[in-house]
Structure formats: C-alpha cells, structure tokens
C-alpha cells in the first residue's frame, strides 16, 4: 500500500449486535487502498457488507476493529465533532434518491447545506449552487423547486451536486445508480465519469451490477459475506477471474444470445447467515470446487495468477 493513497482501510471489521451475546459481522478484516484519481469498485450480493463498508469509509459509523486512514491520518476513532472538518474532502451518494433528500427543503437549500457548513458567504452560495446545477446537468430554475418535483435520475443529480459542492477528494457511491432506470443509469454513469476526469476525484464505487462496475472502475474488489474474496484490475478480473464466486458472478451476467438456453444458476443455494458464517472458507457451502480442506481451513488473500489477490485454496484454472 502506497503512502500516497487517499483512503486506506486496514483489517477493517464491523460487528452489529443482534440479540443477546450474538453479533453480525457485516465487514470482516477488509484491507483496501484507493489512490488519488482512482476508481475502486466493490461488488457483491445484497447483504455482503458493501453498504456497511461504504458507510465506514466516510465514518458515518465507527469500525469495531481495524483502521481507516484518510490522506494518511487515522480517522477510525474520531468522534462526530472531530470528523466534521474532514467531511469537506469526503462525500457519499446514497442508493435511494428519494429518501436521501429532505422533502421539506428546496433544491437550493439542499445543495447549499454543505457550503453553509464550511463558511461560504451568503452571497457566494447562490452562484455556486447555480454552477453546481449546471455541472450535473440540471436547469438553473431547479433551485427553487422541491425534491418531489423531480424524477429519480434528477434527484440523484441533486445528490451528486450536493456531494460535489465542497470539491471533495473522495466520493463514495453506494449503489448510486441501482434505483434508476437503465437509460438514466447510463446518464448518471457518464456524468460521474466526466466529473472524475474533470475534478480528479477518487471514487469508491459500490454496486451489485458488474456491467456498471466494469464501465467505471480501474480495480474491482469482490465481496462475499463481509470478506474480500478477490481484488484485481478490472480487465484482469473479467478476463481471468480467480475466485469461483467471481467466476459464477460473471457467468450470471445474461448474454444477449437467444441460442443460449442454459438455465442452471451458476451459484446454488442462498447466502449463508453472517451471524453464523460457515467454518473454513465462507464460500465452501456454494462452491463447485470445494474440498475437505475448504471446510476447515480459511484461505488467506494471496497473490493470484491474474495479478490480483484471491482468497481461495484452489483458484479457478489452477491444477488440482
């Protein structure tokens, strides 16, 4: 991990208490680093801990163990007040464009909120809001309207404008396009790609949609049950997935080929409960390649043949 990384996660773990003396380990020993200007994708099924990871990265919640370093500074134990000055440089966009905007505030007040918080003068706020609206492709007269007057895609643009207001260095996109129609998704993705180039943003892009992640990300981390099971450059991951879970995910992407009648799901069964994860490799319950060793001995994240890292005893394509 280079010292120049903008965000560095090390051994990050988050437990949620469930009932008496039980806990749900939503994120388990995750280590990642994002370089300035880099886009890192996080993919995985629902419930694999992606969203928790995103909220940890901007310290909306506190980790149970491990460290979060932002521009080299350990922020894992800062309280809300100590975090506030740092919020200028890190922003987050949420999945649901409906509940992430307060219905009682108009667009100008929504976008102005971060600007007020960091001491921008009242007369400078109006022009800055107008500028941001242009940046995200909304008409200038949107400022006076309320969120309910906008479609999902437009609302997500408002969220992006609010997130960009302070010129952050890191933007966490938590399923930022998942709630939108496919055509609108493409617009928002293009917008994010343009902004990234223009502003030199680092993105932590969380999604369950492989096509979306492939389009936008330099590197991809695949999560399963709170753990990273594979981490590789986008091209390498798609060309030669090393983990059986990644391979299954790629196979699950529908092919636009009417002759392909294969209907068997690439991964059988349901996601095991993170309250009571399986011993050994967490994926062995659904893995086509699982052997006795997988059921007892948890694999570690090790260098893989595609140049990335993989958490598997018997990676795809390896000799038995």
């Amino acid at each position, binding site marked *: 991990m280079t010292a120049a990384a903008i965000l560095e996660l090390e051994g990050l773990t988050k437990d949620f208490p469930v009932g008496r003396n039980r806990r749900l380990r939503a994120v388990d020993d995750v280590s990642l680093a994002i370089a300035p200007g880099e886009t890192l994708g996080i993919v995985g099924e629902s419930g694999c801990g992606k969203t928790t990871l995103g909220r940890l990265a901007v310290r909306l919640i506190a980790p149970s163990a491990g460290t979060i370093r932002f521009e080299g500074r350990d922020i894992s134990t800062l309280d809300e*007040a100590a975090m506030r000055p740092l919020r200028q440089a890190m922003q987050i966009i949420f999945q649901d464009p409906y509940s*992430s905007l307060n219905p009682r505030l108009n667009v100008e007040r929504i976008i102005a909120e971060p600007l007020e918080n960091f001491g921008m003068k009242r007369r400078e706020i109006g022009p800055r809001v107008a500028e941001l609206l242009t940046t995200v492709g909304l008409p200038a007269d949107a400022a006076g309207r309320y969120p309910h*007057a906008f479609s999902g895609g437009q609302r997500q643009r408002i969220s992006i404008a609010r997130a960009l207001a302070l010129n952050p260095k890191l933007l966490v996109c938590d399923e930022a396009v998942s709630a939108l129609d496919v055509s609108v998704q493409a617009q928002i993705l293009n917008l994010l790609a343009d902004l990234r180039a223009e502003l030199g943003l680092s993105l932590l892009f969380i999604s369950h949609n492989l096509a979306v992640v492939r389009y936008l990300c330099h590197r991809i981390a695949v999560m399963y049950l709170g753990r990273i099971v594979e981490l590789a450059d986008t091209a390498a991951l798609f060309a030669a997935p090393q983990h059986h879970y990644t391979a299954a995910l790629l196979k699950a992407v529908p092919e636009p080929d009417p002759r392909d009648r294969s209907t068997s799901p690439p991964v059988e069964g349901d996601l095991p409960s993170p309250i009571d994860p399986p011993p050994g490799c967490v994926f062995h319950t659904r893995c086509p390649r699982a052997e006795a060793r997988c059921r007892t001995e948890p694999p570690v994240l090790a260098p893989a043949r595609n140049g990335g890292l993989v958490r598997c005893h018997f990676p795809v394509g390896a000799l038995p």
Partner: protein
Amino acid sequence: MVEIDAGRQRRSDFLLRFRKSRNAVIGATLVALVVFVAIFAPLLVPHDYEHVDMFKVWAPPSAEHPFGNDALGRDILSRVLVGAQVSLLVAVAVLTITLTIGVTLGMCAAYFGGWTDTIIMRTVDIIFAFPELILAILVAAMMGPGLLTVIVSLSIVWWPGIARLTRALVLQLKNELYVSAAIACGSPPAKILIRHILPNIVAPLMVRASIGVGFIIMAEATLSFLGIGVQEPRPTWGGMIRDGLQTLRTDPYLVFYASLALAITIIGFNLLGDGLRDILDPRVRDR
C-alpha cells in the same frame, strides 16, 4: 412534470382533509367557541362576575340570570364565561413550557444517546412512576395554592410524556438517509435537529398537544376542585363544581353549568386531536 409549490400544495391538501374529517371540524368549532369566550369574556358577561347579591343566594335560573345564582348570589353565567380564561391560560402556559422542555430534552436524548439519553429518560421514568395527579397535588401542596402553582405542577407531570414521544419520533427519523446525508456534509447536531428533524415531528406533536389540552384542563379543574388551584375571587370551573357540590341536591345549577362548560371544552380538544391524528397520521390516512 407540472410545477407545484410544495408548501402551498401541502397546505391545501391539509385543509381539504380537515374539512372532510367530522371530528376535526366539530372539535375545531368547539375549541374556537371556547377561545372566543375566553378572549371576549369581559365584553360578553351580562353581569359583574364578582357582584355579590344576598337576595339572590341560590336563585334558580331567571330571565335576568339565565344560569341562576351561586351561594353568594353571583351570576353563574358570567362566572362560567370568565372561568374559560383560567382554563385556557393554564392550558396555553403548560403546553408552551412542556413542549419547549419535552421536545428539547427528547430530541437530545434520541440524537445523542448514551449518557444523555440515560439521564433524561430515567428522570422521565421516575416521574412516570407517580400517578400524574398525585404528583401534581404533591407539588401544589408544597408550593401553596395559586395560578403559578397550577402551571408549574402540571408542567412537571406533563413534560415527560412529550419527551418520550419526541424521543421515539426522533429515533425513527434519525435513520432517514437525508439525516445521514446531513451528517456526511458536515452539519452540526443543532442544525440537523432543527432543520431536518424538528419540521418532521411537528404534526404528531400537534396531535398530542391537542389531546393533552383536555387532560391539562381537567387536571386544572381537579386542583381547583381540591382547593389547591387558582383562588377566589377568580372563577374557575373546578372551583365552581366544588362550591356547588354541598348543595347539589337542592341547587344543581352551579355544578351543572360549570361541568357542562368543562365537558364542552374537553370534548372539543379531544375531537380536534382525534381529527388531527386522522388527517396527519399517514398510517390512518386513507381510511
């Protein structure tokens, strides 16, 4: 998409539903009547409410005194009209005090959690452990009778309910994404509470306050009835019921009209509260 001013739309929406709710309309009418009487009582009274006339002691209703006269020959109608003032004054004062304290502490307890929450909510629990009226009577007995006593003692028993309700509402709202978004963009707690949370708990608090007025007026009447409330010569409905109780069998008019005024007021506020709940609570909205 048609452009609509959200504020105006919400208001007209509210008025529309308000007119459709029979409870709300009847309640609001009764409340308006009582408020009107309280404000204009000095102009409405046919006689001086303090005028003693020994020739008319316990006189039955007559053309000159439609509600009759009390033990000192004072005009009951005038006293009932003026009695609305104390009831409403106490209600307004207690509501103002308890909403301010209850909402502030409830919001802090919910938002900050931890020790703040523990201290505030355990205090609330302790006050809740006493029966409401017993505690009010205890405080009133310690402070001595009077208007201020009534307001203070009722405020002490009434704020914990507001605090508890507020805390529950805020705990729900705290998980809204726009609150997370506000934290993420660096808004301090005071701003989050006032700008993002308070406007969204006003509606349920209005319902609670409206129903609460019924309790407060009833409690005020009870304290006055027990003689530890507002004192003579200022007429109160509770005090009038007490005065008339000894001669209830022979001269029931004082008790009857004071109780009627009390009943109309309390029913009015309760109907208004029920109506507001039907209108404002999204869970019962579309019935």
